[in-house]
């Protein structure tokens, strides 16, 4: 007997080995099930033992009596009441148990208040706190380029860390305010709190569930963008027009996520009305696009077959209808008395669209827009994701446009959703206003840098498609709309190349910077005036002026009117390299002056940096030994 007991391998019978395997929770879950079954058996035995006693033990004198008499022997009123009481008690006990059944099975689906307040359940907070989010990698997927990861702090606690904390702050989002990738990328679908039997029957092996996400962002390019905008206010968006990859997107001034954790610091960030560091200028701030918007008008012309239109420029400006103010070129100036001084942009002769685009002729594009008409502009706006609204008031309404994104779950799209850019194409606005829109002024002044990068990506796409932007690298590319035919896109690329390459083009600074690399880039400059609030440089407070106005009773009241000034924003949109563009860039610098002086050089720098990083087509890979030594094997692994 003893030897038999010794032979048994007790180690095998330990509960961990019976249930556990690799999953720790299986051991207690299995033991619990055993416990429940065993208690069930014991209760069963008790019921059996009780049922046996349920029949009244017979008294010896009953033996000879007939059955009717024995049955009546103990049936007193009292005993009948006892039986009734017992019945009531069992019913009550089962009713109370029924309430437990209700909370377990039905409250989740039927009790609305219960559902609405389930966020008060501390258990969900506990399981979210214990489960780690995935890591975020940049497009290379390399560990050293992890954008978001975990590390141990001084107290050996596990904390979330970011390699580009300020550079990517807007994309990652804060825990408190606007959600970003951090709060939306790692939605978990599986119930993190299984029941004991589910643990036992369904979770058999350790699942190396892959929570990590590879983003389309390039680590180095993103930090390069941040350096480019240092000390300036503005935004840069870099997309890949072929598949919609967001390679980099940055808005300055930014903030650090560490700051946003602390409530006081967060409130300070929120209260900074002058710099608005929490605002993602790339997707949520409207700018007047200026001449860059002529690309939109050009696309519309191609879509309508009007790309061969020829319009003249006039020394006195173009007058859309009798009595209207004239529309003048950037080189001209409209004096208060209505006269115009200065020469036409590129001469006052008739121009075709190529010439007009190259010199950025306002008069040409105003005439083109009026010629295209409201319907065609609205149609083009639709395929580019721009809202075409009927009245100027509608344009001021805030609307977000999550459906432009190509994401794996809608909450990511919602978190990154741009403010939808808008133009006015209704009957309310005059032809003069329509003309202004065609050249990127007036009611076209509701464009986000993100939208402009999307517009630039249409000619950049080899098939003339607008690709939905995507941030997750493993998301298959998806087109938003077929905007142009491949030939039209190629033609438009040629037009865009004239701006940078031909003498007289507004963006020749680009080709000067790119000379020697062999890269050809197309683009369009833009310069736009916007009324902006004036802040005191030292105190950071709004500058005001005392003004008087009449109040309701007709009395003159003094009030503080904010001081405004005319801010000249510098724009540049670009695609590169021209044979097969992999970059579509939109740069805006607030108060940066001419597009050619501030924004265009930044775009050129980005193209050069992208070449170093191997983001262009293979033939532009840097060939010098020194750069290769600096960035070993990086280009190889790029796709």
């Amino acid at each position, binding site marked *: 007997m003893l030897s038999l007991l010794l032979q048994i391998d007790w180690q095998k019978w330990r509960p961990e080995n019976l249930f556990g395997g690799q999953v720790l929770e299986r051991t207690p879950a299995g033991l619990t099930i055993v416990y429940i079954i065993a208690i069930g058996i014991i209760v069963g035995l008790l019921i059996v033992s009780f049922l046996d006693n349920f029949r009244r033990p017979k008294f*010896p*004198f009953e033996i000879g009596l007939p059955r009717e008499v024995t049955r009546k022997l103990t049936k007193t009123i009292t005993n009948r009441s006892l039986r009734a009481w017992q019945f009531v008690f069992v019913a009550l006990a089962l009713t109370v148990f029924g309430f437990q059944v209700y909370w377990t099975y039905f409250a989740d689906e039927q009790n609305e208040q219960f559902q609405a307040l389930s966020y008060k359940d501390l258990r969900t907070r506990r399981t979210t706190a214990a489960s780690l989010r995935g890591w975020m990698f940049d497009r290379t997927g390399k560990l050293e380029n992890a954008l978001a990861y975990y590390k141990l702090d001084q107290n050996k606690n596990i904390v979330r860390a970011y390699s580009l904390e300020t550079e990517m702050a807007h994309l990652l989002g804060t825990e408190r305010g606007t959600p970003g990738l951090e709060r939306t990328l790692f939605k978990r679908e599986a119930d993190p709190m299984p*029941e004991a039997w589910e643990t036992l029957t369904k979770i058999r092996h350790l699942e190396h569930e892959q929570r990590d996400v590879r983003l389309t962002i390039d680590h180095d390019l993103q930090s390069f963008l941040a350096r480019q905008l240092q000390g300036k206010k503005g935004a840069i968006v870099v997309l890949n027009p072929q598949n919609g990859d967001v390679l980099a997107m940055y808005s300055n001034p930014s903030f650090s996520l560490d700051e946003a954790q602390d409530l006081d610091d967060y409130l300070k960030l929120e209260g900074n009305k002058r710099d608005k560091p929490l605002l993602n200028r790339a997707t949520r701030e409207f700018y007047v696009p200026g001449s860059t918007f002529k690309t939109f008008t050009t696309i519309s012309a191609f879509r309508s077959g009007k790309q061969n239109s020829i319009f003249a420029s006039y020394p006195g400006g173009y007058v859309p209808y009798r009595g209207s103010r004239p529309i003048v070129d950037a080189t001209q100036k409209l004096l208060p008395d209505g006269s115009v001084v200065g020469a036409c942009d590129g001469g006052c002769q008739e121009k075709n669209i190529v010439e007009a685009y190259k010199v950025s002729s306002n008069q040409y594009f105003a005439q083109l827009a009026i010629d295209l008409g409201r319907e065609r502009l609205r149609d083009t706006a639709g395929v580019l994701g721009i809202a075409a609204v009927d009245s100027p008031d509608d344009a001021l309404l805030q609307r977000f446009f999550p459906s432009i994104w190509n994401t794996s779950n809608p909450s990511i799209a919602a978190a990154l959703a741009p403010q939808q850019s808008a133009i006015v194409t209704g009957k309310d606005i005059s032809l003069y206003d329509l003309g202004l829109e065609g050249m990127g002024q007036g009611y076209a002044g509701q464009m986000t840098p993100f939208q402009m990068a999307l517009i630039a990506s249409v000619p950049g796409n080899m098939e003339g498609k607008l690709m939905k932007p995507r941030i997750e690298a493993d998301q298959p590319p998806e087109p938003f709309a077929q905007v142009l035919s491949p030939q039209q896109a190629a033609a438009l690329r040629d037009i865009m190349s004239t701006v940078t390459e031909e003498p007289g083009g507004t963006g020749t600074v680009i080709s000067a910077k790119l000379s020697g690399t062999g890269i050809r880039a197309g683009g369009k400059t833009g310069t736009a005036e916007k009324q902006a609030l004036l802040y005191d440089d030292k105190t950071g407070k709004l500058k005001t002026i005392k003004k008087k106005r009449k109040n309701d009773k007709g009395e003159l009241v003094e009030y503080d009117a904010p001081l405004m000034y005319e801010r000249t924003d510098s724009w540049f949109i670009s695609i590169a390299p021209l044979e097969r563009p992999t970059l579509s860039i939109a740069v805006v610098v607030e108060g940066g002056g001419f597009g050619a002086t501030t924004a265009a050089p930044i775009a050129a720098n980005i193209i050069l940096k992208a070449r170093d990083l191997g983001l262009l087509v293979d033939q532009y890979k840097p060939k010098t030994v020194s750069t290769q030594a600096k960035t070993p094997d990086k280009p190889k692994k790029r796709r």
Partner: protein
Amino acid sequence: MKNRTSSHFFILAGIVIVTAIAHYSIYYGALIRGYETSTVTAGRNLLLLGLLSVLPIFLKRFAKFKGNWTLYTSAVLLFSIGLTIQYRLFSDPEYTSRKDKAEARQEKIKTLQLHYIQESYSAEKKQMMGLPATPPSPVDLSTESPRPADQTISDVLLSGNTVNPLLGFAGLIVAFLFMRRDDFLDLLQKHGFLIVLLTLVPLIIAAITSRAGKALGNMTPWEPAKIPFLIGFAAILAILYKNLARTYWGLPRAKDVLPLLVMAMLPFVPFFVLKDFGQMMVFSAVYVTLYVIAVRRFSQRFVLIGSVVLLIGVLVVGALPDKTQEEIPLLPMLARPVRTVLPNRIQQRFHLWLDGFNPPTPDTQWWKSDYDDYYKKLIEKDPGLPQMLEENPELQKTINVDAWFDILAFQPAQATFGIASGGTTGRGLGLGYPELIPVADSDYIFAALAEELGLFGGLLLTLALIVFVSAGVRTALDSRDMFSKLCSIGLAAFIGFQALVNIGGITRALPMTGITLPFVSHGGFSLITSFVMLGMLMAFSHRNAVDRENSEIENLP
């Protein structure tokens, strides 16, 4: 299965083994979360149960126990479930520690995170984090160093958790030995009214010294008052029930009714002062039980039952949520006078019961002061709040909801979420989060049970309770005189109703009243009283069996 001591001994031994399994499960579950449970406490629990499983042998051998063992075994089963759940809760450092709760919680979370990293992070990732670079592999608990349990043997042995059950066992034996004696029972029966007066002593002391239903810390000194109340009332009824049947012009004599009225008032007055609504409900339910069973005239029964139903109706009408009241015509008019009389505490409880997920408006009179306190604390933290409230009046609603779920509704809401999360088989012992519910070891122990053992756990507990009460009813049925009949059913009713009021309060079938679950909850006087009552019931069962044997002997030809 016959009523053999040996078969019940085997069931009891089974209970010990099963409880050991449950304790191991809790121990292992704790290791997963990075702390160790006290093996001393586990051993203590098993020893207590071991003691209870050998007790029948001694009762059989030395006290010649002949009664129904089912009573005893089902009570021990309830007690073992209670010990298990208490072990789960009291070994959790987050539940027990008062000062460093947050630290204990953080430590648990960190352990889970480290396990996840160990299981699913690649060696490179671990290295980057500054952890030993090992490939993803299953966690080996034997290599970890969990937070040790800091209970020494003397701590465990001297704690109330050890002493109270032992006192309870002693009480059980003493009660059994006394109550089985004819002379002692005769004595009790004769001095019924005097014994009732005894009841008042602890009640009055408590009413003077305590506040909010708890006196002397967490002790409830009127728990033992149940026994004299019951014996006294049974004695009085045993004499009166025949007189009551004698009516003049359809009415019983005043001198027969008066003692009953006094008895009826007894539970109400002191508990109204104490605002202990739960005990009032249990005492009244037992009163109704005894009355209905003893009194034979239908009209007389009807008077009592009718008035009880009316009283409950009026209370509920008074406490119905405002929304429901407005829907039914005339209801607000009826409810207003009730509301002015009802104590605030009871109004709170009723609101929690009927409309618990819907916070009352901040100007409700019983909620206003709590809300204002909460609001004041918020302003201290954020002085800009009043201005924000002015700009955005919707904010007040949010603050009100937060205040409601942080103060009054916190415990019941967490309990309800716990029950809902338990599902059919529960999360598993040591795998749920019952430590989030405050005082889950006593009043809310059913919520902890439902979370970790699920519907099955709740069902088995209910069944064990039904078996116990039914065995009590069996005892009453077999009793051959009115006094022991009433005593037996009263004892069963006390334990049964107290359990129903407790479970019903947690599952929101009844208002939550803060009384314990007999045999299961952690408690002092309440546990001892329960065991004494068990001893008394066993004594009555024993007497029935002896009576039967005697009649056999007498009738032998």
